[in-house]
């Protein structure tokens, strides 16, 4: 090799060379005394820098104690505030619990209804002609429609389904909104903490 590898010696010394370049420098060093001398100087400088040990520094225990003394104290919060904080942190778990409960109620109610229909048990009086009007039968009556018993039963089932769905959707929406609110307050708290940290 003709050219010296001086520009790469520092990186070689620091272990920053890899692959082809590393092999190139190693091969050159094997046959070039000038570059070896240059490398030796770098190594001597590192050795010299490390030779001067840190002296006169205080013992680690004393240092830790001094840092501890200079750290800002955390204000102790009253018990009610700590309880509130814990409750706030557990809020998502509570919301998930409520959501699971709503799901379970909806599924169990659906299964019970289907089972009752299959076995012909008329606990809710669905097979009886409707004695009271639902919102839909009233609307249809107003339009002059004549409704048979089967039609009335179907309409009554539809009416129940509507109430069930309304309950389910309202509960789900409320849970989602509460969870979003919790996330928004979490984000606001973090922003506030960051601003405080930057200010201090």
């Amino acid at each position, binding site marked *: 090799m003709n050219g010296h590898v001086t520009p790469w010696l520092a990186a070689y010394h620091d272990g920053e060379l890899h692959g082809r370049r590393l092999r190139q420098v190693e091969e050159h060093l094997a046959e070039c005394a000038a570059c070896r001398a240059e490398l030796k100087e*770098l190594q001597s400088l590192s050795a010299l820098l490390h030779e001067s040990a*840190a002296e006169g520094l205080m013992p680690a225990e004393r240092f830790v104690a001094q*840092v501890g003394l200079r750290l800002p104290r955390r204000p102790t919060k009253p018990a009610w505030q700590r309880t509130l904080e814990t409750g706030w942190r557990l809020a998502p778990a509570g919301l998930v619990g409520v959501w699971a409960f709503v799901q379970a109620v909806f599924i169990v109610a659906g299964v019970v209804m289907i089972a009752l229909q299959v076995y012909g048990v008329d606990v809710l009086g669905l097979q009886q002609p409707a004695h009271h009007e639902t919102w839909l039968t009233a609307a249809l009556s107003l339009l002059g429609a004549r409704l048979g018993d089967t039609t009335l039963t179907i309409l009554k089932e539809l009416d129940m389904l509507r109430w069930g769905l309304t309950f389910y959707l309202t509960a789900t929406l409320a849970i989602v909104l509460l969870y979003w609110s919790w996330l928004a307050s979490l984000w606001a708290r973090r922003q506030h903490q960051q601003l405080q940290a*930057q200010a201090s």
Partner: protein
Amino acid sequence: MVYRMCGDANLAEDAAQEAFIRAWKHLPSYRPRSPFRNWVYRIANNAALDVLRRQRETVDVDALPLANSGASPEATVEKEERAARVRQAVLDLPDASRAVLVLREYGGLSYKEIADTLSIPIGTVMSRLNYARNRLRDLLSPCLEDI
């Protein structure tokens, strides 16, 4: 690391304490995108520079006693004098070059880690390191002959 940046035990202790306190206060703003060590080194580097800056306003850092004044055998005295000369030479480097040299030589950081810690390109790390080493070689050439 702060000891090498400050060149004096008392200043280094101040800077290290300052660095730990800043790290504690700013812990919520730490994002694990970069290694925790780099983040702490960056804080320590800034704390060391701040302490030096404050100190320069009141005391001439160059006039700080670097050698131990206690009585010691001849060889120890010679070694201590050499160590003091090394510390002084490192301290005489410009802040930017000294930070790179200290992170490399005493912190053992790679070029990439130094670049991340100081928010500078790798090319700048290499050029500052070269500058610092060349300058130290000039300043410490008599000591280097003894190694």
